[in-house]
């Protein structure tokens, strides 16, 4: 699945919900189903500190593809994190660095990306792209 296809699939999933409650219940479910990051990767190096919640991001190359694993101590952020991982993980560094991300906006969740200081989600996305650029340069 391309980055675009993964985004379109999420947008379609969310079209089923017409109120904030069912939308957030779904995000909470995604958060609950998302496999936790192994403790060994919850390091100081992998932590992205927000004012409110903590997010951990682990990145590694699997052949040609850059993969991500992540976690958060807040369940809604965890759900949002799982969506970013679903969309971006397992693509080439080039694709990740230059991806056009529109799904958060379309689903109506962009406020979670705007609050840079408060939840670490925006910082996590930035970090994912930075990994893309870094691995691209390393090749």
């Amino acid at each position, binding site marked *: 699945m391309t980055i675009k296809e993964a985004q379109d699939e999420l947008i379609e999933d969310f079209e089923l919900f017409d109120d904030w*409650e069912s939308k*957030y219940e779904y995000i909470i479910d995604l958060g609950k189903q998302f496999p936790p990051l192994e403790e060994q990767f919850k390091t100081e190096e992998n932590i992205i500190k927000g*004012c*409110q*919640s903590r997010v951990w991001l682990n990145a590694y190359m699997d052949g040609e593809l850059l993969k991500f694993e992540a976690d958060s101590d807040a*369940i*809604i*952020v965890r759900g949002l994190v799982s969506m970013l991982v679903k969309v971006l993980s397992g693509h080439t560094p080039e694709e990740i660095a230059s991806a056009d991300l529109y799904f958060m906006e379309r689903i109506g969740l962009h406020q979670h990306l705007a609050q840079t200081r*408060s*939840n670490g989600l925006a910082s996590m996305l930035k970090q994912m792209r930075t990994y893309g650029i870094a691995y691209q340069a390393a090749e």
Partner: protein
Amino acid sequence: MTNFPDIASIRKDFPILNEVIGGKQLVYFDNAATTQKPRIVLDALSGYYEHYNANIHRGIHHLAEKATGAFEDTRRRMQKFINAPLSEEVIFTYGTTDSINLVAQSYGRKFLKEGDEIIISTMEHHSNIVPWQMLCEEKGCVLRVIPINDEGELLMDEYEKMLSGKTKIVSVVHASNALGTINPVSDIIKKAHKVGAKVLLDGAQASSHLFLDVQALDVDFYALSLHKIYGPTGMGILYGKKELLDAMPPYRGGGEMIKEVTFEKTTYNELPYKFEAGTPNIADVVAAKYALDYVDTLGKDNIAKYESELLKYATDAVREIPGLKIIGQAKDKVSVLSFVIEGMHHQDIAVILDNQGIAVRTGHHCTQPLMSRLGILGTTRASFAVYNTIEEIDSLIKGLHKAKKMLG
């Protein structure tokens, strides 16, 4: 429940309370961060810009004189609000943070030396920690911290033990923004004065709830922000005793603060102007007077009484929520209700409440050392102002039950 004088009519004074957020009526419980502004403050702001915007203390023309008069009126109004003996003891600043930095940078750099001690407390806001750390780093002073008990009250015995001839400054929060605790400041000041130390009180939270009398307290410095007293953002004051302010050097140079400038030597203006370099925040200072008038017209005692009824109602009501623990159970509190709920992250709580139009604050409230002392990462905080209602607290309780259902 007191219905002083009439909350419905008070609410009409605050246009923002009509905002609808995602289809829901706004419930604003983030008053400890900043209060909303009544119409008369908004009118004063636009009135200034529409009718008498001019730079002050400089021009000899009608507008400049009118603006200067209004600016200085606020200073005298502020003097009355805190019962300062002299109007020149009221220095306009950008707010509490700026006021504390002024004392640390001017008084601290001039009068403190290596080995001197500064006492703060565990429940300080970062803005009453970092300026002192910067001073300690520069001067080799020692920062000492008054511990607290689990209820969130200062351990006064420990404080007394810390005091000695080495203590030069005691800087503590009058009322805590994270816990609500009202500290026994009169006692703190008396004890500090016995060893010759000066006392600064961070009045950011206390000033909208408590009656202030700097003379009765005999406090040396008092810092506050107008945006927490129904006034405009970006302005506050530092009160200081005249003999201390006179002895302190200016810490920012520029226009307004000088008497005469030559390239060889500059003589400084007198109080309060020597601390007010540059064009100040004239519009907000002018409008601030109306916020103080508003508060005094309602009556601080009435406000405090009503807010404590709200706090009591909310405190009893949240106890119904299973797993909820109140953080900050001091005997004397301003209307701040901080809590954690077992198994729920405060950010998740805030997101669910936000979707119901309820604005609370979550996180460490700029008091990270306090949070570590309490062994938590943050709290959810509802803080009440004079325009809040029992019905709004009921909405909060409903909202928390919903959060519990969705997140549990």
